[in-house]
């Protein structure tokens, strides 16, 4: 490093603005992390708690009173949020799914497991879901798999698969249902939403791709799952 560089470095270090994180940011991140943590930890009342070895109690952390209260507050939130989500606020389900799709795109988090290999994505859902969603590779048909993530939709833990086509992203939300439902396409806030159920799973595909493309995606998916 030359002296010139040293001078410049000193100048920048001394005089350019160092931006400190705003106070609110730290608090907000801690809250979000706590919420996410609480969402991951099975609740004491969960039916699965009976056949699993007892988890470490929420009260034995020994974080001191303040932290325990905080954890308790978060626990209440974790209990209430799914309850509140279960209540239909007059908004149809597809509006929620469109919102989830948009949020994932905005935050750049369309996949928690990034892989175009279904043998990587499918096992990733193990232990995160109490069902095994089908994961299908449609790369040869022009819809490469980007990966998968978990969404929480009205109290359901929902497997979400992301596929792309020409820079469009389609999210396929999958969770169990014993119903059979024919394919129905709707448009919500400019997004195409296609829904069907095959007696084992229900599917909701959400994307801004045009009608023919999302219908072709749906058809391919249905053919492949039927063939499995």
């Amino acid at each position, binding site marked *: 490093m030359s002296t010139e560089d040293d001078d410049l470095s000193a100048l*920048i*270090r001394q005089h350019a603005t160092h931006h400190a994180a705003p106070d609110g940011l730290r608090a907000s991140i801690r809250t*979000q992390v706590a919420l996410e943590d609480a969402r991951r930890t099975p609740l004491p009342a969960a039916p699965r708690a009976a056949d699993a070895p007892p988890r470490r109690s929420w009260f034995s952390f020994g974080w001191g009173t303040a932290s325990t209260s905080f954890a308790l507050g978060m626990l209440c939130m974790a209990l209430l949020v799914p309850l509140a989500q279960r209540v239909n606020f007059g908004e149809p389900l597809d509006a929620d799914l469109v919102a989830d799709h948009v949020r994932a795109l905005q935050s750049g988090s369309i996949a928690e497991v990034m892989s175009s290999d279904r043998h990587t994505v499918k096992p990733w859902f193990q232990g995160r879901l109490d069902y095994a969603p089908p994961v299908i590779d449609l790369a040869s048909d022009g819809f490469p798999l980007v990966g998968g993530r978990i969404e929480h939709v009205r109290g359901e833990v929902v497997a979400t698969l992301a596929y792309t086509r020409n820079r469009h992203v389609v999210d396929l939300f999958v969770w169990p249902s014993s119903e059979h439902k024919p394919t129905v396409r709707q448009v919500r806030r400019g997004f195409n939403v296609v829904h069907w159920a095959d007696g084992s799973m229900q599917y909701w595909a959400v994307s801004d791709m045009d009608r023919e493309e999302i219908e072709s995606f749906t058809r391919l998916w249905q053919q492949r799952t039927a063939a499995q």
Partner: protein
Amino acid sequence: MSGRQTFEALVLPHLDAAYNLARWLLRDPSAAEDAVQEASLRAFRYIDSLRGDDARAWLLGIVRNTCFTVLERRRSAPEVVEFDESEFEAALGATGHGGSDPAALLEQRKLRTLLDAAIRALSPALREVIVLREFEDLDYAQIAQIAAVPVGTVMSRLSRAREKLRSVLSQSNLGH
């Protein structure tokens, strides 16, 4: 240590560095907050992958990727200029100079405004290496890892960025 404890103990202390990088890369306070928030949640989700690594460099890598995703989405035309003159002029003109300052203080303020405007006008790729090197004092290898480019690229970007900054400073007779 639980994931959350690890996050609080190892990652959260580097929040200022994370915010500073995001603030410089995105040039906007609320976009920077959003990006750091998003990056922190991602860091928490992948906390298990932080094994013996330098937590600060690891977090900055995640922040940096989040910011570049935002930049990619934001820009309508590819940013080819290494130094954006109009951005520089705008940033320089945006800060008013208080007339009642003692001369020395005024000089310092001018210098800060000038440096900030010059760094702000660099292309994201050059701005990134300057922030990581000069503000965070990271070495070439760490910067290379964060920016996902070879060390040689880091060095050439750093030298181009410095050259640009020096020329701006010398033009204004404030630099060395």
